[in-house]
């Protein structure tokens, strides 16, 4: 797919309340281009605010807001109701890492176990951004947040691997820095009938301490350093996406320090931390290779 092939219609209207350079806003815009008739559920998260204030909304598609822990369940409710009533639409849960990895994990797990016909997209800005940049289970090792001012000690909870264990019909990781890859994955997801999950890397300028113009660039570095691995799990087979394939080879990865030094949230990171992160990257690639 080429950029020019991306659908022209803009279903995500301008003038929303997102910060300049917001990864999730771009993600939502791209999702609405990939999915013809989305019906979206948004739990408490940045997206709840980004859609704007009553009586307006930046969404030209039906959208349900729900409490933070309920995205998976609310989406299930809509999907099942739509089926019973014969209504047209693709149900998409659009949740942050907080509302997925932590408080929302149970209801997502329930939906996946039942195989409810939803596409659950976890936009990952790696912290509880909406409440002012507090750490989440998805915050990476060494990152500054307001609740980890010394840098997070723990490593990132890998929600995609958790979803792998649910053996759902379709699973993928994606990034707003690679729009055609994200859109292609969404189109593939739509071809499956059960629960589909996509973890979408979404840079956050205020939370990551980067200039608003650098969101896409930092996203690219994440992939080029091997930190963020683009892959798919379909029909019980895991495959690394074309874009990420070169970075399976550590010698072809850009130095992790390039990714870390591009973001203010890693400014306090030590050399030991960097070594630990490099080891983690190697281990992650090795682990994924077992499923291929």
């Amino acid at each position, binding site marked *: 797919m080429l950029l020019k092939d991306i659908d022209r219609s803009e279903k995500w209207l301008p003038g929303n309340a997102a910060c300049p350079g917001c990864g999730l806003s771009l993600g939502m815009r791209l999702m609405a281009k990939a999915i013809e*008739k989305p*019906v979206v*559920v948004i739990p408490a998260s940045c997206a*709840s*605010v980004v*859609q*704007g*204030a*009553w009586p307006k*909304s930046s*969404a*030209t*598609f*039906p*959208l*349900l*807001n*729900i*409490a933070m*822990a*309920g*995205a*998976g*369940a*609310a*989406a*299930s*409710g*809509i*999907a*099942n*109701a*739509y*089926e*019973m*009533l014969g*209504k*047209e*639409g693709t149900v998409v849960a659009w949740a942050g890492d907080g509302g997925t990895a932590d408080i929302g994990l*149970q*209801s997502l*797990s*329930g939906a996946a*176990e*039942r195989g*409810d016909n939803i596409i659950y997209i976890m936009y990952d800005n790696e912290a509880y951004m909406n409440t002012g940049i507090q750490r989440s289970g998805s915050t990476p090792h060494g990152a500054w947040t307001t609740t980890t001012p010394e840098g997070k000690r723990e490593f990132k909870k890998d929600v995609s691997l958790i979803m792998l264990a649910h053996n759902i019909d379709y699973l993928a990781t994606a990034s707003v820095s690679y729009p055609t890859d994200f859109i292609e994955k969404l189109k593939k997801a739509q071809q499956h009938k059960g629960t589909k999950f996509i973890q979408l890397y979404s840079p956050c300028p205020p939370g990551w301490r980067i200039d608003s113009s650098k969101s896409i660039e930092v996203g690219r570095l994440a992939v080029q350093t091997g930190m963020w691995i683009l892959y798919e799990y379909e029909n019980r087979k895991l495959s690394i996406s074309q874009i990420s394939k070169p970075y399976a080879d550590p010698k072809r990865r850009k130095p992790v320090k390039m990714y870390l030094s591009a973001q203010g949230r890693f400014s306090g990171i030590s050399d030991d931390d960097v070594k630990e992160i490099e080891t983690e990257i190697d281990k992650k690639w090795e682990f994924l290779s077992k499923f291929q």
Partner: protein
Amino acid sequence: MATEVMTGSRSVAMAVKYAKPDIIAAYPITPQTEIVEDISTFIANKELSSKFIKVDSEHSAMSACIGASASGARTFTATSSHGLMYMAEAVYWAAHARLPMVMAVATRSLAAPWSILNEHTDFMIQHSSGWIQIMVEDNQEAFDTAVQAFRISEEEHVQLPVMLGLDGFILTHTSMPVSMPDAAEIDRLLGKRKSVFSLDQETPITLGNVIGAEHFMEHRYRIFEAMNNAKRVIADVDKEYAKISGRSYGLVDCYNCEDAEEVIITMGASSGDAKVASDRMRKEGIKCGVVRLRVMRPFPKEALLEALRGAKHISVVERALSVGIGNILAHEIKSALYDAGERPFVKGYIAGLGGRDITPDDYEKIAKSTMNMQSGDEWVNLKL
């Protein structure tokens, strides 16, 4: 008209079978379990074609119901005690999002310590949630009210969810004869759900996004108005249902209260025992009556004051407790009387917590004790 001897749980399940909701999402919790088990059996036997989402928790149950109702589906769930507490944020959400649905609450004590036995605290403390709340006295009323609840909830000028309370174990697990109108009559009464709004492609609304301080209160006021509308709607639906069933309940159940000077106010199944006690006292020449509060929200102030006219001493017996103040219902009753300039003597009684029985003897003692006019809440049968 068919009559079956069945438990309160089955009565509710049968009502659900007749109402034919599109979506049911529920999580089991004692003593509600038979309701969802019966519904599962109906669906498996193809007697009911609803989709039952076997959710992972009560919070997920209410969240799924919100999604379903917002999509225009007729929706049902059931829970109790801690299940109700776990879903509490979503309970509030559903009402304030103006989403019609029906939830049966099998009343049960709250922990700690654990008790699965009957108490009304779980139901009573949801009184600010925005849900219409109706508590029934017996299984017949449970069936009738559950059917009516869908109609009340979906009414255009109401658009609020309805919570049906039935005593855990006392009603849920006790069998009584229940007569059910014809399915066709119920179909005609309920019709198909006509949504005021729903999530669809032709009307791509956003439900529940941020609202500023300049507009929030007005939205709350509209819910308040809808609750007031509900008083009329509950009475209207009651009348319509009476035509197909021969039974009518009203907002408040007055048992010999017309000329009563000594009144016992109760809720739920225990009212039966209060009525036995009041009959006994009548034989002794005491003008006793029972006022059973059936509709808790909207608070039926007018109907209540009407029923309490002429009362001299009122015993408000509640199977619930609001720690720090006492009997919730007594405070609401006193408040209504105060506003009306009425000054009968009102005494609150805290009874039957954690499944402890309240007998007709207890009610007799209570009514006679109230005549001594010693103010302050009293705990019944406390063994210290």
